[in-house]
């Protein structure tokens, strides 16, 4: 079982560049989430999706975009990278078919913007 897979694991971006963080899950989960975690801090929700074609903003969506064209994939797009986006990004998924079951997390993408 692969679970939730994020790519890349590490990336260095220059200010103003763009990139897409990939997230794939093979558990047929309908709910997917993107979080960022700054050093020593908690998880902040960026965007989430309750199913293919449906996305919504979380607590800190500015500077990011998402799409959900399939159940499996939930990419996060950074446009015009800024140093403030230096963080570790986690993708997660859950089924919610049985109410409020656990969320499974990817291994994270460590992004540095210089």
């Amino acid at each position, binding site marked *: 079982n692969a679970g*939730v897979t994020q790519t890349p694991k590490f990336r260095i971006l220059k200010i103003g560049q763009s990139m897409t963080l990939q997230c794939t899950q093979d558990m047929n989960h309908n*709910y997917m*989430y993107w*979080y960022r975690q700054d050093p020593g*801090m*908690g*998880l902040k*929700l960026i965007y*989430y999706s*309750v199913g293919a074609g449906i996305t*919504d903003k*979380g*607590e800190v969506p500015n500077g990011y975009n998402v799409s959900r064209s399939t159940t499996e994939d939930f990419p996060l797009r950074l446009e015009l990278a800024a140093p403030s986006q230096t963080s570790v990004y*986690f993708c*997660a998924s*859950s089924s*919610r078919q049985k*109410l*409020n*079951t*656990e*969320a*499974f*997390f*990817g*291994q*994270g993408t460590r992004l540095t913007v210089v």
Partner: protein
Amino acid sequence: SQKIEQNSEALNIQEGKTATLTCNYTNYSPAYLQWYRQDPGRGPVFLLLIRENEKEKRKERLKVTFDTTLKQSLFHITASQPADSATYLCAPLTGNEKLTFGTGTRLTIIP
């Protein structure tokens, strides 16, 4: 606005003692509350879920309580071990789609 607070950023406990972590929430009424463990450099891992009609839930050395009147959940680790050292996160859930977390408590078990 909704707020989730966990008692302290860091907690040091002697090995063998019981560690107690607190999760307080304001401005909403969750039907469920989840607890996760996060090790450095890793994603969180689910530990326990407790429902609003359950006062207490146990799993091995872990015990969780849920007081909807106080708007608080307590997370206990009994007979603590150095391997329990990690950051613990709570996530109250209302049943809507969002999954948001408290700030976390970094627990260190001292041998």
